[in-house]
């Protein structure tokens, strides 16, 4: 089931530009790790390097170690595609496939990989993923409708269901609520609470309250200035980071006195 991810000495590059430097961080299994920090400090880049989505961008590469379950994700014999099946991802903006129905969106991870399923199997996967994503009751009567016909918050939960249907070990979320209203946000935060019993969750957020509410561990990233690489300033249990951080920069950022 859920796995721990150990990152050590990780540098992240876009071509010759070093975006993130020297990050060492452990993301424990069955817990929520929140990544916070000012815009441009490399939270998304870091998150995307955890499931090898970073290298999809031309010229992008990383140096350092990311270890899950005793195996280096960047070892030469590791297939990035298989890594992504183990480590799912939810994006800032909901991106359901517009040509597919709600049910087909949930099944996308299986179908697009050429897996054959009979009706019963497919129906079961759809129901299980949608129940887990807390969306089943809202859409169970219109599974054949296009995924894009849902509201923004529902679409985001559909994307979570889509990620869960692949049965990953880890779920990465990049500002999953930033495009959503408070009610949908609450729905997704509740969902994160239940999901962490089964998954390792890493979430990027700009919302301090959200980080405080949902996460067990918080990691604060910062950058010294424009054009300089981002660094991990400190990480620790969320209550500690929010009450007595070691680094004054962390305190300044969390209390809103920043820059």
């Amino acid at each position, binding site marked *: 089931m859920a796995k721990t991810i150990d990152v050590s000495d990780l540098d992240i590059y876009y071509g010759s530009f070093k975006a993130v430097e020297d990050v060492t961080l452990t993301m424990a299994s069955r817990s929520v790790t929140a990544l916070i920090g000012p815009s441009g400090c490399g939270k998304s880049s870091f998150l995307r390097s955890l499931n090898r*989505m970073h290298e999809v961008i031309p010229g992008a590469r990383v140096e350092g170690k990311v270890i899950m379950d005793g195996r280096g994700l960047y070892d030469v014999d590791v297939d990035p595609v*298989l890594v992504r099946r183990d480590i*799912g991802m939810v994006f800032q903006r909901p991106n359901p496939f517009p*040509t597919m129905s709600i049910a087909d969106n949930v099944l996308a991870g299986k179908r697009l*990989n050429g897996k054959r399923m009979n009706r019963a199997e497919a129906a079961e996967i759809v129901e299980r993923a949608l129940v887990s994503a807390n969306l089943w009751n809202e859409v169970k009567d219109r599974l054949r409708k*296009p995924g*894009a016909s849902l509201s923004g918050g529902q679409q985001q939960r559909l994307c979570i269901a889509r990620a869960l249907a692949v049965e990953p070990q880890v779920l990465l979320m990049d500002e999953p609520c930033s495009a959503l209203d408070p009610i949908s946000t609450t729905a997704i935060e509740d969902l994160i609470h239940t999901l962490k019993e089964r998954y390792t969750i890493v979430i990027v957020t700009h919302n301090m309250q959200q980080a405080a509410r949902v996460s067990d561990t918080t990691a604060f990233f910062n950058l010294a200035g424009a054009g300089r690489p981002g660094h991990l300033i400190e990480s620790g249990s969320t209550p500690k980071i929010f009450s007595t951080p070691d680094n004054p920069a962390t305190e300044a950022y969390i209390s809103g006195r920043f820059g």
Partner: protein
Amino acid sequence: MATQTEPPPATDVWPTASRGSSRVRHSHHAPTVILGASAVLAAGVLGLSGWVDPVGAVALGWLTFAILSTALTATLRGRRAAKNNVATILVTSAFALAILPLASLMWVVIEHGAPAFNAHFFTYSMRSVVGAGGGIYHAIIGTLYVTAAAAVISVPIGLLSAVYLVEYGRGPMAKALTFLVDVMTGIPSIVAGLFAYALFVLFWGEGTRSGIAGAVALSLLMIPIVVRASEEMLKLVPHELREGAYALGVRKWRTVVQVVLRTAAPGIITGIMLAVARVVGETAPLLVTAGYTDSTNSDIFSRQMMTLPVFAYQSFKSPGVPPEPGYERAWGTALVLLIIVMVLNLIARLCTYFFAPKPNR
């Protein structure tokens, strides 16, 4: 529909630039009334002067309408409304002028071509026909085969090139391909025809004529259109969808085929239809590659093959004795071509309508 004469709403925060307190409201029928008045006026003037010319009448009526309605708007609703009126009339006139040649072209082709239409015309070839009678069956068959073969050649090549350019191409190779496609778009069709002819001379010797040579010539013209259209459509697919698929652990080629191509499919099909419509009426390249014949040939790999545009050209160039049936057949063929092009455009529209993702249904 011409002038914007909507009455301002009661709680108008930005009152129209009406002078003083007299805010006179036009009714919705005002432009129609003015148009009617102008028409009557123009007719009256022409009637009195005894100068009868429909084009002049329309022009005069339109001019009267423009001046009258602008003057009226200016006095009743102020300068801004008058400017709006002038702009609206200019835009509408430009549209009418653009439509005019198209409408009259269709009218002429239908007028001359429709009399040729009968069952005989569509089911007989010109084999041993002298004078009246005969039909275009052989040319229809030829056009079907040649165009279909051209599509079979150019769609895979064009589509795959577009996929390469958008999804895989980086660096000098992609730049070179883009440049070549641009150049190919501008190749004169007769050059494509001569090239295809020269190519097939290599295999089958001097004087060779075949449907397949015609198809190759047409595909030279079609490929750049297909590449361009598909490229545009593939670029429109949002990057987030590709990333969404990658994040599910889907391999790149599967993502391209099942997400990117699937999402772009309606646009690509439309582009292909329009490319077919574009080449179906090509004459010069087919004249030198497929040649012409009076009989039906359904083997694209040997002997001459008649096609609709070449048939129209031939019937017009050497209509026979007496010439009238030949001319009539030429016009009939022109009408058939026009209908084919319209049907292809219609299919393209329907494709967009039925296959495009519909968010709110």
